């Protein structure tokens, strides 16, 4: 699907300092395979700085980076023929039509004039702009502008697209459509996508791989499944006296904690499931739910201490 390219991108000791005191990236080492990649981190974690360095918009203070095996600094123009970028901020002139602007942007990425025209029509249709594409951009709604921003990043058929907060300013319906568009573009057309967002729900819906940066350093890079994997905690819901049920489990030597209507039970070994079932039968209470808890992406951003305390408590 991503034939011809081994690594999507790689950084080596990538550092970016602003002045003497602000360090946006701090010796970042990262290597990614093509796919739909989520880039998450708190505000100021270095997401946008990383994307801008990879696009050649910012020079790094030290270190190096390659995208599609091309050096972002030395082979910039050549590389960027195959790269699309949708910035977080407004970036569209108001006084031209979407058709005019997107076709121009395609040509600045090396497409011949006729091909640029043709692909502009196709791409604008793909992002869901139809007759309004001949009108001036200044009259567009936020949702339409976001679509034009996506179209200009896509019109030259890039190998990789960098999307910085693509759902910025959209209402819930617009958000859904944009995420669907991004996911389809990545899966159906095999374009690698790096999407920065601080909304974990969005990342979870679209991305296959997750890169977490914090304070300009790599916290973790792994398939999204690793982040939302099963935990060693069972959530149990019973119909009947939950307090009595909990006490009985504790008496069996299990670690138990109440959480609202749920009883959380630590899994010490496979016997736990049988013990819970037998206890329910003994007490004559109905077992409504018995499931192994999945980790939530939000857990990533919970302070480590609290997380540790949680696990110990259970």
């Amino acid at each position: 699907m991503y034939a011809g390219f081994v690594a999507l991108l790689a950084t080596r000791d990538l550092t970016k300092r602003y002045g003497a005191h602000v360090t946006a990236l701090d010796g970042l080492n990262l290597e990614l395979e093509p796919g739909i990649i989520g880039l998450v981190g708190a505000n100021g974690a270095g997401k946008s700085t990383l994307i801008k360095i990879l696009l050649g918009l910012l020079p790094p203070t030290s270190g190096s980076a390659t995208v599609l095996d091309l050096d972002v600094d030395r082979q910039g123009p050549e590389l960027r023929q195959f790269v699309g970028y949708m910035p977080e901020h407004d970036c569209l002139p108001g006084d031209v039509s979407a058709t005019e602007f997107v076709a121009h942007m395609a040509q600045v990425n090396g497409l011949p004039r006729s091909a640029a025209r043709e692909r502009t029509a196709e791409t604008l249709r793909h992002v869901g702009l139809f007759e309004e594409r001949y009108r001036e951009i200044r009259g567009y709604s936020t949702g339409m502008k976001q679509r034009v921003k996506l179209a200009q990043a896509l019109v030259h058929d890039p190998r990789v697209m960098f999307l910085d907060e693509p759902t910025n300013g959209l209402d819930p319906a617009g958000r859904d459509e944009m995420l669907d568009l991004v996911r389809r573009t990545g899966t159906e057309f095999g374009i690698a996508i790096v999407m920065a967002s601080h909304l974990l729900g969005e990342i979870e819906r679209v991305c296959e791989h997750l890169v977490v940066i914090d304070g300009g350093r790599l916290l973790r890079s792994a398939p999204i499944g690793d982040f939302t994997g099963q935990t060693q905690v069972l959530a149990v819901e019973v119909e009947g006296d939950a307090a009595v049920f909990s006490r009985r489990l504790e008496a069996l030597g299990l670690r138990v904690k109440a959480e609202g209507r749920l009883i959380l039970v630590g899994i010490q070994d496979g016997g736990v499931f049988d013990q819970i079932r037998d206890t329910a039968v003994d007490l004559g209470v109905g077992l409504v739910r018995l499931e192994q808890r999945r980790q939530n992406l939000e857990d990533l951003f919970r302070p480590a201490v609290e997380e540790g305390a949680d696990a110990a408590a259970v």
Partner: protein
Amino acid sequence: MQPQSDATGSIYDLGYRRYDGVRLGRQHAVIALYLYTLRGAFGLGRRTSSKIIPVIITVIAFIPALVQLGIAAVASGVVEIFAPENYFGYVQVTVALFCAAVAPEIVGRDQRARTLSLYFSRALRRSDYAFAKLTAFTTALLLLTLAPQAVLFVGNTLATKDTGAFLRDNWSEVPRIVSSGLLIAALMASVSLAIACQTPRRSYATVAVIALFLVTTPLAAIFVRETGSWGHYAILLSPFDLLNGTTLAVFDIVPDPDTSLEIADLPAWLYPVVTAGYTIVGAGLVLRRYARIAA
């Protein structure tokens, strides 16, 4: 392409496809930006209101040429009011107005709309962007400095009874017309873009450009007339005087009596040299601005 049926009925999916065609790279990108900027200078591809000012100003720059041709038609070439060597003097304010109106569009628009990050993340370098803007604006100005002269020359050629003789007598003027037109366009483009690109604010840029051209001329005149020999060099700070001096130097003609140029009495070769120098400095400032600007 497969017919695709869905809730809204049978439609043809003409949507996204992969592109396997050629990618022409950096040079093509620069040419595309050059042509887009040149079209934009005259409001082409934009709404009607964007065309009005540049087109009207451009038409005004042609008026002396058309008047001269009208006179020539009536009085058969006896009276020559607008000649190649003094043409710029008559249209200098018009050309300056064009610079003030259009330069902020050429370089301010992408800063205002924050489109620079889209350009700089494409198949060109920052210096390529600056180069395309400079050459496009110079080309646009040639339409005001050179094209009217071409109309004048062709018109005069056609108006004479003996076309061959006219061409023989005046052929040597062609390289002078072209080189003076080029020098004027290059200097005015480079200097006005150097000023306009410093700010995304349209109004600031317009005022600054017009001030440079219009305020410096009377100031230079005061210095030249009221101070001693070193004050004469102040004339080099006035773009209009500098360009008129350059034109006279190119045509090898002495300035009219009692003009600032005549009183300053500087060597003729100095004017084209300083013009070239300003052009290079202006272009350098544009390149420097785009090397540093955040995108």
